[in-house]
C-alpha cells in the first residue's frame, strides 16, 4: 500500500503531497475486488454449515428454550414465582427490559445517524448491528408483557376499545413507552429489510437450489437492479434513515421518563434522558463488538472489511459515551448531595454508595467509567482481546447501572418502614440467561441465512466506486486528479 507521494507526474502536472498520517485509511483492506467482496460475504450463507456454527447453535438454542419454558411457568403459576414484591415492584424484569432495549440502540444509530452524517465506515457493520438491534428489542419486549403478571391481559398496554370502559392514561410515560418501543421495532425492521433487498437479490441470483432461489426470490421482491430500482431504493433508505434518527434519541429518552416523571428520589431527575441515550449507545456498541469480534474470528475473510480501523472507531465511541455516562453519574451525585439540598434525594444517593446494593454501584462505576478509559491508548484500541474484554465489562456495567437505578431507589425511598430487600428467584435468573441464548441463537441464524455485511454498500465505499477514480498511473489526463488529493487508499 503506497501513499500519494508523487511530486509530479510524467506530463509535469503537480500532484499534491499527502503525508502518511493524513492519508485515508482504506475501508477495505488489501484492495479487494468487487467480485471478491460478493463472493466472500455471500459464501457465508452458501457454504456447508461449519462445525463451529453447529457447536454454537447447539450450545445456545437449548439456553434459548429457557425463555418459553420459564415464561410459561410464570404464566401458569403467577408472577409470584419472580422474587419481586412491594416495595420492589420493578426488579430484574424492568432492569432487563431497559438493558436489552438499550443494546438495541447501536444498530439504528449506525444505520441512520452515521448514514446521514456520511460515515462510510458504517457500511460493513450496519447490517449485523441492525439485526442485533432487532433481536435485542425482541428480548426487551418480552419483559413488560410478562411483567404485568397476567400475560393474556397484556393487550391492555395498547389503546384498544374494551369492555372495562377504561382508556390508557396518556399522561403516563409507560404508555409512551409502548408506542416508542413498538414504533422503534417497526421502523427498525423496515429499515433493515429495505437495506437487505439488493443483497437478497444477489443471493437469489447465486443460489443453486430451487428452494433457495424461491425463498431469496420472494424476499428480494423482484429486485432487478435497474436504475429506477436504485433510485427508489436510495430514496426509501434516506426517508427511513430520517425517520429512524429521531427514534434513536426518543426511545431511550422515553424509557428514562418511566423513571424521571415519577416523584421517587433517585429517579426524579432531568439529566435522565441524555444520560440514558448515551448509556444506550455505549452499551449497544459494546454488544456490536461482542458479536463482531468473534464473527471475524470464525470468518477470517471479514477481516478485510471489518478492519482494525472499524474496531478503533467503535472503541472511540465507547470511550466517548462511557465518559458522558461517567459525567452523568458524577453530576447526579453532585446534584443530589450538594446542589439540591433535598434530604431524600441525597439520602437516596448516599444509600446507593453505602447501602445494601453498594457493590452493584461500584461494579457499575468501574465497568462503565473506569474500564473504557483504557481506550485513550491506540495500542489498546487495536488489541482485539483488550477491546473484547472491555466490551464485556461494559455489557455487565450497563446491566448494573439499570439495577442500581431501579433497585437501590425502590429498596430505600422515603419511609424506612416501607423499605424492602429483593433477591431474584431462580426463575428470573434463568429467564435472563435464556434471553442471552435467544439473542445469540437468533444472531447465529441471521449469520447463516442472510448476508451479514451489506455487500453493495461496501462496494460503494471502495475507491473505484468514486466517479473520479483513476487507477494508478492514469491520473495525468484529467484535471480532477490534480484538483484534489486523491484517495491514497486506492493505491
Amino acid at each position, binding site marked *: 500500500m503506497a501513499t500519494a507521494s508523487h511530486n509530479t507526474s510524467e506530463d509535469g502536472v503537480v500532484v499534491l503531497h499527502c503525508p502518511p498520517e493524513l492519508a485515508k485509511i482504506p475501508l477495505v483492506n488489501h484492495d479487494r475486488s468487487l467480485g471478491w467482496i460478493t463472493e466472500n460475504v455471500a459464501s457465508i450463507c452458501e457454504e456447508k454449515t461449519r462445525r463451529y456454527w453447529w457447536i454454537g447453535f447447539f450450545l445456545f438454542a437449548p439456553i434459548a428454550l429457557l425463555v418459553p419454558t420459564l415464561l410459561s411457568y410464570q404464566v401458569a403459576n403467577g408472577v409470584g414465582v419472580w422474587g419481586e414484591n412491594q416495595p420492589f415492584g420493578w426488579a430484574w424484569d424492568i432492569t432487563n427490559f431497559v438493558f436489552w432495549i438499550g443494546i438495541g440502540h447501536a444498530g439504528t444509530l449506525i444505520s441512520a445517524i452515521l448514514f446521514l452524517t456520511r460515515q462510510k465506515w458504517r457500511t460493513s457493520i450496519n447490517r449485523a448491528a441492525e439485526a442485533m438491534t432487532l433481536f435485542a428489542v425482541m428480548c426487551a419486549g418480552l419483559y413488560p408483557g410478562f411483567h404485568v403478571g397476567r400475560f393474556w391481559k397484556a393487550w391492555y398496554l395498547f389503546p384498544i376499545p374494551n369492555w372495562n370502559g377504561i382508556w390508557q392514561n396518556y399522561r403516563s410515560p409507560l404508555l409512551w413507552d409502548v408506542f416508542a418501543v413498538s414504533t422503534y421495532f417497526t421502523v427498525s425492521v423496515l429499515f433493515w429489510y429495505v437495506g437487505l433487498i439488493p443483497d437478497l437479490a444477489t443471493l437469489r*441470483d447465486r443460489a443453486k437450489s430451487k428452494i433457495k432461489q424461491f425463498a431469496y426470490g420472494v424476499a428480494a421482491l423482484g429486485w432487478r437492479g435497474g436504475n429506477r430500482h436504485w433510485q427508489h431504493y436510495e430514496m426509501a433508505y434516506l426517508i427511513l434513515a430520517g425517520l429512524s434518527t429521531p427514534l434513536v434519541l426518543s426511545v431511550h429518552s422515553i424509557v428514562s421518563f418511566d423513571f424521571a416523571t415519577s416523584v421517587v428520589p433517585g429517579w426524579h431527575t432531568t439529566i435522565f434522558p441524555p444520560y440514558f441515550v448515551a448509556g444506550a449507545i455505549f452499551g449497544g456498541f459494546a454488544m456490536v463488538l461482542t458479536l463482531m469480534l468473534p464473527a471475524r474470528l470464525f470468518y477470517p475473510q471479514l477481516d478485510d472489511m471489518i478492519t482494525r480501523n472499524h474496531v478503533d472507531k467503535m472503541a472511540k465511541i465507547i470511550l466517548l459515551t462511557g465518559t458522558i455516562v461517567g459525567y452523568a453519574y458524577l453530576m447526579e451525585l453532585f446534584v443530589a448531595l450538594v446542589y439540591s439540598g433535598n434530604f431524600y434525594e441525597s439520602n437516596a444517593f448516599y444509600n446507593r454508595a453505602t447501602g445494601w446494593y453498594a457493590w452493584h454501584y461500584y461494579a457499575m462505576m468501574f465497568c462503565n467509567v473506569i474500564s473504557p478509559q483504557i481506550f485513550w491508548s491506540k495500542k489498546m484500541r487495536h488489541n482485539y482481546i483488550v477491546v473484547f474484554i472491555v466490551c464485556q465489562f461494559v455489557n455487565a456495567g450497563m446491566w448494573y447501572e439499570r439495577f442500581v437505578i431501579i433497585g437501590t431507589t425502590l429498596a430505600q425511598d422515603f419511609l424506612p418502614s416501607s423499605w424492602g430487600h429483593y433477591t431474584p428467584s431462580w426463575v428470573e435468573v434463568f429467564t435472563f440467561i435464556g434471553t442471552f441464548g435467544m439473542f445469540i441463537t437468533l444472531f447465529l441464524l441471521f449469520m447463516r441465512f442472510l448476508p451479514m455485511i451489506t455487500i453493495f454498500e461496501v462496494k460503494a465505499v471502495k475507491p473505484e466506486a468514486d466517479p473520479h477514480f483513476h487507477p494508478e498511473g492514469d491520473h495525468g489526463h484529467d484535471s480532477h486528479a490534480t484538483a484534489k488529493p486523491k484517495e491514497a487508499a486506492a493505491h
Partner: protein
Amino acid sequence: MPQIFQRGANLVPLKILLVLGALATGAVGAVWYYFTPEYTKVGYQPSQPIPFSHKVHAGQLNIDCRFCHSFADSGAHSNLPSTQLCMGCHTQVQKDSPKLEPLRQGWASGKGVPWVQIHKTPDHAYFNHSVHINRGVSCVECHGRVDQMDVVYQAKSLTMNFCLECHRAPENALRPLDKVTDLGWKAPTQADELASLLGTTPDKLKLKAGDQLTPGKAQKVMGEHFKVQRGVLPPDSNCAGCHR
C-alpha cells in the same frame, strides 16, 4: 437462467393482501361480536332446581323484592330467601306440588335449595347493594324486568363498562326511594306531575308548566334533582373506589 417465478407471481402479493385483509376484518368483527360479555354473558339462564317464576311472584302477586331478598337494602350482599321463608307460604299454597319437592326436601334436611347463581360480580370488585338501593338506583337497572321473567336470566352485561356508564352519569338511574322495587315505574313525563313528585315547581326545574317531556328528558331532570339532593358522587375514575 430460467425464470424462477412465472408472470402470474406478480399478482400473488396483491392476492395475499386481499385475503389477509378479508381475514383480518373477519377476525376483528368476530371478536367484536362474539368475544364480548354482551354475547357471552347476557341471556345466561341456568336451569334451577325449582322452576321458580318471578313473573308469578313479583309480577302477578306483586310481592316486593325485599320480601325475599331481605338484606338487599341493608347489607353489602343481597341474600337469597331461606327455605323457611318459602315454606311460610308453601305449607299452605301449592303444598303438594311435585315441582316443590326439592324445596320440601331442603326444608326437612336443613340444607336449603341449591339455587344456581346467575349474577356475579368478580371478587376484586367491591359491590355494595345497599348503597345503590338507598340512593334510589332501582333493581331493574342491573337485573332487568325480573318481574316479567318466568325463570331469571342475566339481562345486562354487568361489565366494568356497564358499571362505569352509570357511575359517570348517575342521573340516568336515580328515582324516588319508594319506587326502587317498582320495576316498571318510569318518571312522569308531564312537567307539572314531575315537579310535584319532586316537591317543587316546574320553574325551579327549568321546565315550562304544562310541558310534555320525553321519557329520557324526564328521567334526566329527576335524576339531576336526586343527585344533588342525595349527594350522589359515585367513584368514576378512581380505581380504588371499587377495587380496594
